[in-house]
């Protein structure tokens, strides 16, 4: 990933943008944090937040004209109620607390600036400049410091409040000269002595000074506060509109920035667009916010501490997090995509040392729900897939992540699982049924039944293609492998005369649309919709319909699935997240392969947020959801109820069953291929490999353990065959058991077994594996 790619990704996620209040506040007080402290009753911490950005917080905190409130998300007339009373909260805070002087001494810059005017604007400029290390000379024409501030009634702005702030200023490098005579000549000499001069016009004594100095208040530069000649700045003119203290402070602050830049010889104008109010890109949903009016001001002195706490608690702490709210995977890593993008970028740039984002990169299901809910379509799946393929290229992909899935894929494109044949009766092939690896592995009997049904009802000849679509290769960050798989699929399709494809799996559909766009594809459900129902089809009851995540942008498929369910006599209800917002079952993106615990979380959220039983129309979704013990049936179960295994007629949902494990699926595919070749196309069976003659007997607990460890029957068969033919095995006298091991590739497999009296039958007691290599015993 290049740095500019990172920037692009970071830009899309607006979670770190400031909330509306802060962006609108001319001096960008962190209102959100301030309100959080106030809500917790931590008034002193709240005051520190104010003092961090606010000059003379004891004064401005009392009188600020709070433009932030106009912008507050809560006050939005479309979906809000009443803005947070930020101004009153600030007032409450500063009356309850005192700002201690900053303890960090700033190294003196060795330069000085002059400020004319004792109003809030001039004092702000002096405050800011002193905090940057400049010595400041303030000239106040009146005998008393304060300018317009002195006009406030004592109830609003007590004398002591200003005095307290002036005390703080006295401890900085600021000298204030009262009764100063200020005219053009004096300003001229100030310009010579100092790096520049700021005229704070918010003082009645300075109302006409611009005439003297030869500038128009209207012509002051709105960004730099430049007043017509180098080194001279001015702001906060008293105009007819009510005096805005926050605007006066902003002008003083802008001038201080300009003077500082002047001292450093930097550009006065470059990248200053975020000074003063600006538009934030933050998005915050009001969806789950309970409406509540602002806390009423009861007394004339503003909010009591308790009232302030309540009002501050109404702040919804604006943030986006839309994607994190719906994705357990994103929530798990305790951040949000912008942060994750940085972590992934860093992870990919690590040469030596820990790659801390590997698990994150490997675990995303690539389901795309994040992009759907994100105001800027941030697709974490795309980012993770890019990162995966980069890791593979750098040879940094941990072998444990996708190895098993890729071995499974290898098998599914091998002669043991692949089959491509035209219609057995006519040899024609206007259509071809593509059931996909998952359905073939989970319920091969459905493949056969659906194929027979299609053949009986469609004209032009219906062929069949058993072959992987390549999705697992894409998910594993292997575009090279994906290209091979799709190429191999394409040539089978061409050999059959480019039939129209009928797909049972929306993942195949999605993959083909992207990588083999020349093929005409429709889903099994759309095709079945126009055909008669098979004999005996139908069911009853009400189900939560789970759309597969790869159907997200296939509305026609989703509509057909619903129509079919209705036709089959069941009632379907939509889950909380459905249609384009459907959730992944935990299998997508190889989430389950790389991080089974994460997949469990995802399924758990789906099945606890929605009532069972579920109706799925993807074999993988059915198996994943059932793995958590949720009751799930497949649409094909309703089409072919007579194929139900171990049906429980007494149960209201006799078709519910749990899914097959990966080892079973592997076997099922090979069996399906041979069975179809033999029974439908009358072909002689493929010669068996030696290891396939080994028959295994596993108790159910052993089978479950073996499945969970992702050990295939084939691995066990090969280990036993190896031991039995070479004699290299361990023997336990007492029990008569053997232990054998076998290392076909990266993984070493171990099995404890005992030969059974009849033929090549072996009872398996346990099997385990590891990736570490035993030196010298390979």
């Amino acid at each position, binding site marked *: 990933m290049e740095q500019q790619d990172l920037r692009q990704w970071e830009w899309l996620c607006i979670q770190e943008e400031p909330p509306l209040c802060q962006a609108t506040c001319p001096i960008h007080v962190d209102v959100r944090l301030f309100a959080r402290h106030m809500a917790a009753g931590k008034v002193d911490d709240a005051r520190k937040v104010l003092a961090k950005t606010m000059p003379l917080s004891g004064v401005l905190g009392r009188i600020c004209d709070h433009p932030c409130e106009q912008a507050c998300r809560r006050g939005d007339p479309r979906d809000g109620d009443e803005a947070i009373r930020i101004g009153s909260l600030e007032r409450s805070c500063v009356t309850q607390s005192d700002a201690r002087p900053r303890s960090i001494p700033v190294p003196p810059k060795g330069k000085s600036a002059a400020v004319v005017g004792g109003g809030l604007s001039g004092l702000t400029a002096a405050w800011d400049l002193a905090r940057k290390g400049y010595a400041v000379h303030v000239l106040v024409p009146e005998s008393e410091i304060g300018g317009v501030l002195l006009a406030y009634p004592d109830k609003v702005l007590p004398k002591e409040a200003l005095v307290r702030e002036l005390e703080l200023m006295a401890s900085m490098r600021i000298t204030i000269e009262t009764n100063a005579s200020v005219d053009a000549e004096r300003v001229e000499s100030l310009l010579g002595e100092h790096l520049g001069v700021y005229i704070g016009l918010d003082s009645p004594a300075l109302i006409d000074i611009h005439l003297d100095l030869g500038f128009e208040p209207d012509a002051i530069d709105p960004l730099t506060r430049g007043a017509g000649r180098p080194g001279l700045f001015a702001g906060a003119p008293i105009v007819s509109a009510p005096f805005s203290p926050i605007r006066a402070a902003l002008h003083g602050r802008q001038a201080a920035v300009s003077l500082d830049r002047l001292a450093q010889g930097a550009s006065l104008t470059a990248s200053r667009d975020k000074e003063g109010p600006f538009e934030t890109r933050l998005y915050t949903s009001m969806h789950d916010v309970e409406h509540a009016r602002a806390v009423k001001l009861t007394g004339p002195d503003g909010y009591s501490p308790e009232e302030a706490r309540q009002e501050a608690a109404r702040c919804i702490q604006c943030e986006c997090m839309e994607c994190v709210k719906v994705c357990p995977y994103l929530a798990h890593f305790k951040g949000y995509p912008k942060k994750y993008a940085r972590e992934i970028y860093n992870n990919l740039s690590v040469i030596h040392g820990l790659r801390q984002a*590997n698990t994150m990169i490997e675990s995303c299901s690539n389901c795309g729900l994040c992009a759907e809910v994100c105001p800027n379509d941030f697709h974490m799946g795309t980012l993770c897939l890019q990162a995966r393929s980069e890791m593979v290229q750098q040879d940094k992909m941990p072998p444990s992540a996708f190895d098993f899935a890729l071995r499974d894929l290898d098998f599914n494109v091998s002669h043991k699982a692949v089959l491509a044949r035209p219609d057995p009766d006519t040899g024609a092939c206007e259509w071809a049924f593509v059931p996909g690896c998952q359905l073939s592995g989970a319920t091969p009997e459905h493949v056969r039944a659906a194929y027979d049904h299609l053949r009986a009802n469609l004209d032009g000849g219906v062929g069949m293609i058993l072959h992987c679509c390549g999705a697992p290769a894409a998910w594993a960050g292997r575009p090279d492998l994906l290209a091979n798989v799709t190429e191999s699929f394409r040539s089978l399709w061409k050999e059959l005369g480019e039939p129209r494809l009928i797909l049972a799996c929306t993942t195949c559909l999605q993959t083909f649309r992207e990588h083999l766009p020349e093929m005409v594809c429709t889903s099994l459900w759309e095709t079945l919709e126009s055909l008669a129902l098979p004999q005996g089809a139908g069911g009853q009851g009400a189900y939560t319909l789970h759309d597969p995540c790869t159907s997200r942008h296939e509305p026609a498929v989703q509509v057909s699935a619903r129509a079919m369910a209705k036709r089959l006599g069941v009632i379907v209800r939509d889950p909380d997240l459905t249609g384009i917002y459907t959730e992944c079952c935990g299998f997508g993106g190889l989430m389950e392969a790389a991080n089974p615990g994460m997949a469990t979380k995802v399924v758990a959220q789906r099945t606890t947020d929605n009532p069972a039983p579920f109706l799925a129309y993807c074999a993988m979704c059915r198996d994943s959801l059932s793995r958590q013990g949720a009751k799930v049936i497949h649409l094909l179960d309703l089409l072919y109820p007579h194929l139900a295994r171990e049906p429980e007629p007494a149960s209201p949902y006799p078709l519910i069953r749990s899914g097959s494990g990966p080892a079973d699926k592997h076997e099922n595919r090979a069996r399906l291929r041979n069975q179809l070749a033999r029974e439908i196309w009358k072909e002689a069976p493929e010669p068996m490999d030696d290891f396939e003659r080994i028959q295994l007997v596993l108790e159910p607990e052993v089978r479950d353990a073996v499945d969970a460890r992702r050990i295939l029957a084939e691995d066990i068969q090969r280990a036993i065959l190896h031991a039995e033919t070479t004699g290299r095995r*361990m023997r336990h006298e007492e029990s008569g058991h053997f232990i054998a091991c076998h290392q076909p590739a990266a993984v070493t497999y171990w099995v404890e077994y005992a030969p059974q009296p009849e033929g090549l039958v072996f009872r398996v007691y346990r099997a385990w594996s*590891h990736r570490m290599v035993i030196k010298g*015993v390979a």
Partner: protein
Amino acid sequence: MQRFPEIIARYEGWTCQQCGKPLMPGKAQLTYMGSVFDVELPKCAKCGMVIVPEELALGKMLEVEQVLEDK
């Protein structure tokens, strides 16, 4: 060298069928992603064949594998 006497004790009574020798604790080397570790495993004194116990493979070894994968 890493020793796991309790785990190895569970493999008493196993013999190497090729050599007819009982397995005894002995040194073996494991490697993964460029790192090499010495461990004590049940081993045939004659031909050197070892068992990697299930308890070790799914316990300590898995942990080390994961650390080396920077998970």
